């Protein structure tokens, strides 16, 4: 312990002998750490937003379908149990939020034009907690109940169809016997979404009205369940699986939308690689600084060894010196990154490349997001790799021959 104290004192004072070099090195470490954390926060912000948006744009956290639904998402893959049985058992299970839907591909026709869309027959009261649409109505109203005979469509779709609030549209789809089922609906609400794709491809109607139109009374083909954290949905999957038993497919969101799912994992990999790359770029300067520091002190290192200090203590001293350097850089870098993220808490507007971000599935307002996990990761990467990098100069110092070191002029 006392050894550590002397070593730390010596290391600290030695650090400030060449203050210019130390300050330059600390600045470099600071910039590196800042870049590690800030870049990660930006990427995390983007991906998390994407995932949250994606989840709100329907998958929920866990989805339940009849087997084969994902391959053939339509009226032919209904859930084996009745709508009311689902309601009874899911309500009893006490989920944060859940909703049953009937979801089919359909063609919507206005007086002017037609488009292919996905039609969602929903229970508006339950969906309020799950989909984004309820909160994003810009004109008119959201659906009121499952029997509502109106529809809610996206702003862009309304424009494409040259229709508007209050006008009628015709929805065409098929019933289980592949008879064309069509019905006119009045547009009661128009929503806007952060991604244009949502606006053009989603159309919402009351569940009962759709069941009637498609001739499937009291049947649904999708149930979505919301847990409390999208990063931890496995318990929900287990609970739902126990509840519904075999014969249906229970999928977490990251399997329903594998692009979003992979984004998360790819992100984790990217973050680590980025941190290591920045560290490596730093490491040359760090090792260089230590090599110079050791080189300048050949004599006193020799002296200390001549006085009886063990090589391991010398090694320790250099490693501590390196750690002090790193800790100072980390401290400032962390604070700076935190401050930058705070300063940008209202988001960074990159709408000049909005259409491009939409291709990534991301919106054009970036909110950097600082997570404890990433900050700890950056610090651990720097400290561990930093210690390893300083071992080489430290080892050299501890191998000095005291006589040569002392007699050197």
């Amino acid at each position: 312990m006392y050894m550590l104290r002397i070593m730390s004192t010596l290391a600290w004072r030695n650090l400030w002998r060449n203050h210019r070099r130390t300050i330059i090195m600390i600045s470099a470490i600071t910039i590196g750490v800042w870049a590690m954390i800030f870049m990660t926060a930006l990427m995390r912000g983007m991906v998390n937003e994407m995932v949250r948006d994606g989840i709100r744009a329907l998958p929920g956290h866990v989805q339940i379908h009849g087997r084969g639904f994902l391959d053939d998402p339509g009226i032919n893959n209904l859930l084996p149990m009745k709508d009311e049985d689902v309601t009874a058992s899911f309500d009893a299970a006490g989920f944060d939020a859940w909703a049953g839907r009937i979801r089919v591909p359909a063609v919507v026709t206005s007086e002017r034009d037609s488009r292919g869309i996905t039609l969602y027959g929903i229970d508006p009261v339950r969906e309020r907690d799950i989909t984004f649409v309820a909160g994003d109505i810009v004109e008119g109203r959201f659906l009121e109940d499952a029997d509502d005979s109106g529809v809610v469509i996206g702003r862009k779709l309304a424009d494409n169809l040259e229709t508007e609030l209050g006008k009628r549209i015709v929805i065409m789809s098929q019933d289980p016997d592949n008879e064309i089922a069509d019905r006119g609906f009045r547009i009661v609400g128009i929503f806007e979404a952060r991604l244009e794709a949502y606006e053009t491809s989603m159309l919402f109607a009351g569940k009962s009205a759709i069941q009637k139109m498609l001739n499937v009374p009291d049947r649904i083909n999708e149930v979505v369940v919301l847990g409390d954290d999208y990063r931890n949905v496995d318990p929900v999957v287990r609970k739902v699986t126990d509840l519904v038993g075999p014969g249906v497919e229970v999928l977490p969101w990251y399997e329903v939308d594998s692009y979003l799912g992979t984004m998360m994992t790819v992100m984790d990999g990217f973050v680590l690689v980025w941190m290591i790359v920045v560290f490596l770029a730093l490491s040359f300067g760090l090792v260089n600084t230590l090599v110079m520091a050791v080189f300048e002190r050949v004599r006193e290192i020799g002296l200390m060894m001549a006085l009886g200090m063990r090589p391991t203590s010398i090694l320790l001293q250099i490693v501590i010196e390196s750690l002090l350097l790193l800790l100072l850089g980390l401290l400032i870098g962390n604070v700076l990154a935190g401050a930058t993220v705070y300063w940008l808490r209202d988001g960074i507007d990159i709408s000049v490349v909005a259409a491009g971000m939409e291709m990534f599935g991301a919106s054009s307002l970036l909110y950097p997001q600082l997570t404890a996990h990433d900050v700890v990761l950056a610090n651990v990467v720097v400290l561990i790799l930093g210690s390893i990098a300083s071992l080489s100069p430290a080892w050299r110092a501890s191998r000095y021959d005291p006589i040569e070191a002392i007699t050197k002029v």
Partner: protein
Amino acid sequence: MTAVTCIELCKTYRQGDQEIKALDHASIDIGEGGFVCLSAPSGGGKTTLLNAIGGLDIPDSGEVWIAGKRIDNLGKGELANLRLHKIGYVFQAYNLVPVLSARENVEFVMQVQGVPAGQRAEKSMAILKEVGLQGLEDRRPAEMSGGQQQRVAVARAIVSRPALVLADEPTANLDSKTSDALMELFVQLNKTHGTTFVIATHDQRVMGYAKRLIKMLDGRIVDDIDQQAA
């Protein structure tokens, strides 16, 4: 028991294709409480011999015994321990750790030895006073004169009361007045504590203080004079 015994020490350095015999069958015996000067012209092998005695350097052949213990076959760690606990060292120059104050330099060895802080402070203050540096305890080496620096080095060498102090041309960078003061300090320490001193020098003035004068030339012991009788 003798403080230092060297038996037939040999050490050869190669410089290009030239072989230099820095130690050539050198044997000496120094009793406890001795005050010995090693004198030789520059390049005579003084430093090599001191380093062999101090366990800094291993001779090619021969034996080195310190206080009844053979040391030339010890490992690096044991040698470090030996220097730490049994031997005080004063070098020609560059004796002090630049980032430590006078007191910290003196305490440094004790700290490595693991002496508790209270005791360390007491001892270092006392020893700095003894070498005449009262009031300069908190100065760093760069803020002291050459003589003052050497006194700090001496204080550090003797503070943990080693049985043996090795000094390699301790006065080489000092003026004559300071040299005399330093030598008088050595003599006094030798008298009061019975510490054995081995001082390498080629300075006539220093040799005058020695009880015993060992002369070397080209790595050989050429003369051994007891000066007390005279």
